[in-house]
């Protein structure tokens, strides 16, 4: 709901992308990750990297929800002079581990974080969320090779598999399937899950990896929860007006 309010207030886009993955973030920050919102730099924290930076409102909303900063700051999003940019930025925003926006950056950085944890013999885990279309960026595959080679069993890659990218479906654009077989061939463990089922997500995230990096293919719906946004690629760009915001919030159970 905060995502919707931010996008509406700022006149920004990508609400469909945020609603697609916000359940995953809610589970990670609500039920899975160790962190201290009053001490964002705590060394022992689990890390979360949003690689599909265009869903930045989802990160901002979740971080505010769990107390990294006051919720009222969210509504400056996208406005003149705001630090709450459309694509997620760490500058001045406690809890954001990495600024992203250009696709294909998150996984390599997460691999570095996971490798550092191994070197320092820290127990923390690193979660990184990428869009399905983002898999077309070659840097992901470079990182996928290295993380399996280094047996990074503290690394969890979540793919927000909503099947839609910027213009069309992933399969009509550049077919990705079978994602599972591709990653298994790269020596990753792979599980598939309903990306909106909190219970299933929590169960998978809370289980330890085997001796390999883990890919979680989260089957999601772009624009989840708002009937007129669901599976409609136009909401990669569109911004709800006053009436549509009201309707969307009502559908999400907010009066």
């Amino acid at each position, binding site marked *: 709901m905060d995502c919707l309010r931010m996008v509406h207030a700022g006149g920004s886009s990508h609400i469909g992308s945020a609603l697609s993955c916000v359940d995953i973030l809610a589970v990670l920050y609500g039920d899975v990750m160790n962190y201290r919102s009053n001490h964002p730099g705590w*060394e022992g924290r689990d890390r979360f990297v949003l690689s599909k930076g265009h869903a930045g409102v989802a990160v901002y909303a979740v971080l505010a929800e769990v107390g990294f900063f006051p919720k009222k700051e969210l509504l400056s999003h996208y406005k003149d002079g705001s630090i709450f940019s459309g694509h997620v930025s*760490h500058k001045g925003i406690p809890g954001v*581990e*990495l*600024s*992203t*926006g*250009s696709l*294909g*950056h998150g*996984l*390599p*950085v*997460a*691999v*570095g*974080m*996971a*490798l*550092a*944890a191994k*070197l*320092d013999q820290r127990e923390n885990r690193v979660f990184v969320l990428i869009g399905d279309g983002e898999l077309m960026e*070659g*840097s992901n595959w*470079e*990182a996928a*090779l*290295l993380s399996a*080679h280094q047996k990074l069993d503290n690394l969890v890659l979540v793919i927000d598999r909503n099947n839609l990218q910027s213009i069309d479906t992933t399969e009509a654009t550049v077919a990705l399937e079978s994602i599972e077989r591709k990653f298994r061939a790269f020596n990753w463990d792979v599980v598939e899950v309903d990306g909106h089922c909190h219970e299933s997500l929590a169960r998978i995230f809370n289980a330890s990896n085997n001796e390999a990096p883990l890919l979680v293919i989260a089957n999601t719906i772009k624009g989840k929860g708002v009937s007129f946004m669901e599976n409609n690629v136009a909401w990669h760009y569109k911004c709800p007006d006053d009436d549509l915001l009201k309707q969307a919030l009502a559908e999400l159970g907010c009066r």
Partner: protein
Amino acid sequence: MRDALVSALIERAEQDPNIILLTGDLGFGVFEEYAERHPKQFFNVGIGEQNMVGVAAGLALSGKKIVVYSIGNFPTLRCLEQIRNDVCYHDLDVILVCQGGGFNYGGLGMSHHATEDLSIMRAMPGIKVVAPSSRSSAKDAINDLLSEGGPGYLRLEKTNADKWLENHYCLGKANVLVDGDDVAIFAVGGIVSEAVEARKILFEKHGVSCRVIDVFTLKPFDANQVLQAAKEVKGIITIEENNLLGGLYGAVAEILCANNSCVPVVGIGMKDAYTSIVGSQDYLRSYYGIDKVSICNAALGLLAKV
């Protein structure tokens, strides 16, 4: 210079367990001793420069100090956005080392000629850009970059020059190798040797007195050396194995322009062009007019107009 890098790194990694060297599968026969002495501080991350710099950023975000090694354009142009977004925007302790600046890999062709790296890296906010001219200054460069922290770009070359001066080179400070009052020659990187030779020819054959300045740090740039030269000599020459756009010539011109200086300047470098032939470094320097002959002609031309 590469041996100077390795010996400095062996020493520094001994003192600081957070120093980690990443290579993109380059440096055959170079890093064995380092890897043997610091096995947990060395990773060959394979052929994938975008991933390598991203991994460097992730390690640095976790408190490590990273040296990324590759050759030619691979540690810069191949992963430029990772340098910009992941390393520089996050102000991380990552030093990108390029072995083989300019025409160093002369025979290998255009792909391996690094002739825009200085301009492009200089345009990146928040990074230090250093091109040493000798083995000794290369060692100073890596030591200073590690000590100061933050993003750095270090352009190394094969060189016969052991050292030009006894003193320690410091980041941000250009060094006058020889003083003179007719023409000031600003040179960056291994090409400093051509400036030194040109000075000798100009003095012995033409009685021209040249000041030779080893720029060392292209960013942050030692503006004072330029302003001082502008007051004290009749003309300035810059020389770089790099495109004339945005590199040393650009830096010098920007300073002079901002300070309303009227001293004439001649830039020697690649004239907004790619190489299309191969040859030894000396051959290519001569072919593209980035050598002592060009410096002598430029100096005599400048003085003829005064």
